[in-house]
């Protein structure tokens, strides 16, 4: 019979191998799902993973991978720092919204003035907005010991209502015939987060995401603060004995994850989305949690995981359009990815042993 045996040390091989394994198992199980729906599984898998990269219209989809992956990576990098220290910011979606609102507010306040300093100010406002929104759970945790998971999550719903109020009220386009939604920032050159190279999909937010990857890598591997974060997560008692200040870690981790989520929101509202609308947020803040874990909370891993997630989104859309796959099947497929990742994760800490059954 099979028996699980705890490894004395987590296996390094499997730590790297499990994400790949999870993707492969997802492909197999997903293929079975698609076959059960009466679609050709090979074609479906090819459409999802191959077509966006090398298909006929890859020239359009490849840049879209960056557009979709950028905010996921940026948010996930921020979250991963907290997750490493055992600080669970589940409310990135809310910080993303508030960052977007603050950035857009700056732009709309200056409209129609054209000046070079507007966009940098928007970046600043977006970062600050996201950070302040995350400071609420941080301060409550530090002062009163509240649970940051609950507080940050609840603040998502507050932010969503704030977004609706803004889209319908203060930020509503005065030339919009009474319809909700702000002016489209794409029509306002000073505020438009344009592609840095046209057709590349590379807007300032994607660049920031890449910079965040480098920043997080350096922080975690070369900096005392990064060491303290890792120590707090891996050995809280040891961290305390070695003089790590938990308050500082909490404030930093929640602050930086809020800041990055706020930035992501700001770049999204001024770029791909273009306007503050009631349903501006589409769940990047929550998906980023999956991305962070899929990437092993490692900066480079998150970069790859973010791009992979973007691939399943875009490939999934193509599969919907071309093969008529229902959207629920695509969501299931994405869910499987996390499910299998968590399942095969077991192999990192345990190994499977074949044991002969012994007589009782």
């Amino acid at each position, binding site marked *: 019979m099979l028996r699980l045996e705890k490894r004395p040390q987590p296996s390094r091989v499997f730590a790297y191998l499990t994400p790949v394994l999870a993707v492969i198992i997802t492909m197999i199980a997903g293929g079975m799902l698609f076959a059960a729906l009466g679609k050709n599984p090979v074609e479906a898998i090819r459409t999802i993973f191959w077509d966006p990269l090398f298909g*006929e*219209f890859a*020239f*359009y989809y490849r840049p*879209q991978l960056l*557009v979709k992956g950028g905010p996921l990576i940026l948010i996930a990098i921020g979250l991963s720092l907290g997750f490493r220290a055992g600080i669970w910011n589940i409310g990135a979606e809310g910080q993303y919204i508030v960052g977007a609102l603050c950035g857009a507010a700056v732009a709309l306040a200056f409209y129609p003035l054209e000046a070079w300093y507007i966009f940098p100010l928007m970046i600043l406002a977006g970062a600050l907005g996201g950070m302040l929104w995350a400071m609420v759970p941080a301060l409550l945790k530090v002062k009163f010991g509240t649970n940051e998971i609950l507080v940050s999550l609840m603040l998502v719903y507050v932010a969503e209502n704030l977004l*609706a*109020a803004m889209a*319908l*009220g203060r930020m509503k386009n005065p030339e919009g*015939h*009474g*319809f*909700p939604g702000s002016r*489209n920032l*794409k029509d306002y050159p000073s505020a438009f987060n344009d592609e840095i*190279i*046209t*057709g590349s999909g590379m807007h300032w937010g994607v660049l920031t995401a890449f910079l965040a990857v480098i920043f997080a890598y350096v922080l975690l591997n070369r900096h005392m603060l990064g060491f303290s974060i890792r120590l707090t997560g891996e050995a809280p008692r040891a961290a305390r004995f070695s003089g790590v200040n938990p308050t500082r870690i909490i404030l930093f981790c929640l602050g930086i994850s809020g800041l990055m989520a706020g930035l992501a929101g700001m770049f*999204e509202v001024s770029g*791909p*989305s*273009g*306007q503050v*609308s*009631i*349903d*501006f947020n*589409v769940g990047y803040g929550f998906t980023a949690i999956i991305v962070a874990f899929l990437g092993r909370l490692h900066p480079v891993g998150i970069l790859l995981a973010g791009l992979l997630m973007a691939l399943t989104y*875009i490939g999934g*859309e*193509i599969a*919907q*359009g*071309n093969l*008529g796959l*229902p*959207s*629920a099947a695509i969501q299931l497929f994405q869910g499987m990815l996390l499910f299998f990742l968590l399942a095969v994760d077991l192999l990192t800490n345990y190994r499977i042993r074949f044991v002969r059954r012994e007589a009782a």
Partner: protein
Amino acid sequence: MKLTHILASAAMALGLATTAVAQDKTKVGFIYVGPVGDGGWTYEHDQARKAVVEHFGDKVETVYQESVPEGADAERAITQMALQGADLIFTTSFGYMDATINVAKKFPDVKFEHATGYKTAENVSVYSARFYEGRAIQGHIAGSMTQSNIIGYIASFPIPEVIRGINSAYIHAKKVNPDVEFKIIWAYTWFDPAKEADAAKVLIEQGADVILQHTDSTAPLAAAQNAGNVIGFGQASDMAEYKPSPRVSSIIDNWAPYYIDRVQALMDGTWETKDTWDGIGPGMVGIGEITDVVPEDVKAEALALKETIANGEYHPFTGPLNKQDGTPWLAEGEVADDGTLLGMNFYVEGLTGEIPQ
């Protein structure tokens, strides 16, 4: 920057041209905001898509994508359809407006039809239905049927289309029942069965015995059924499975004639930008069977009201009508103009509460 832009456009145009040559069928795409099985708004658009297939047979090929979020993702979904060689694309929710216009700029040879919006272009038409005409009939039945004089209304987003519906229903409920009161809950969603059910339950707890909804699922009707003695109406689709009660009638969106018409126009080469806003008369808005739960006389009045609206004798927004704050809006016998209706952002006199701002 300009050069790369031109190159990108050329590449897109090329991609488009090659697929266009490869097929002689007319390819029609649909972008849906909800799942095709929502039983309401998206369901009816998909029924119309099927009607297009049935009408044209081998001459058309249809593709659709469901549950497309409004915003940045919509632009990609529409672009993708255009890239895959669609000749005509229906984008069936208000929130796709800017995305539709943006994609239309990149694909001048593809025609676009945007539902319920107001931005048109050389290759973008808009179309919508005068749902408020159906709301008038609903309001009449609701006002006549309520015992508690409290009517619950599950509203989606505070946009003119929804506000128009509330006003129209209220005006006609009030006409038959001066004591009637509307309780309105804003759900901020078009389709979320759990949220809609919660809203319905809250309204029923507050004493409402008639539930009107501007959301797309059947959840409010299910909640009404559980509560007992509460009636409601099918929204966007007939929702006949809740007959004869709680569903006593319905507003049915009938897009099929319009879709067939537009596809035909494209095939004939006569497609041009249009701004369509049709109601009960041309058949874009249908009134589902009024069940026997509704007393004979109320049913007869409702059908008579439908008749006068259909033949243009009566407009649901006919003065004298004041705005909520008491300022006069329409004088005796005056009829609201389409411009005001399209941008409607105020309640009529008698409604309580504020439109969320």
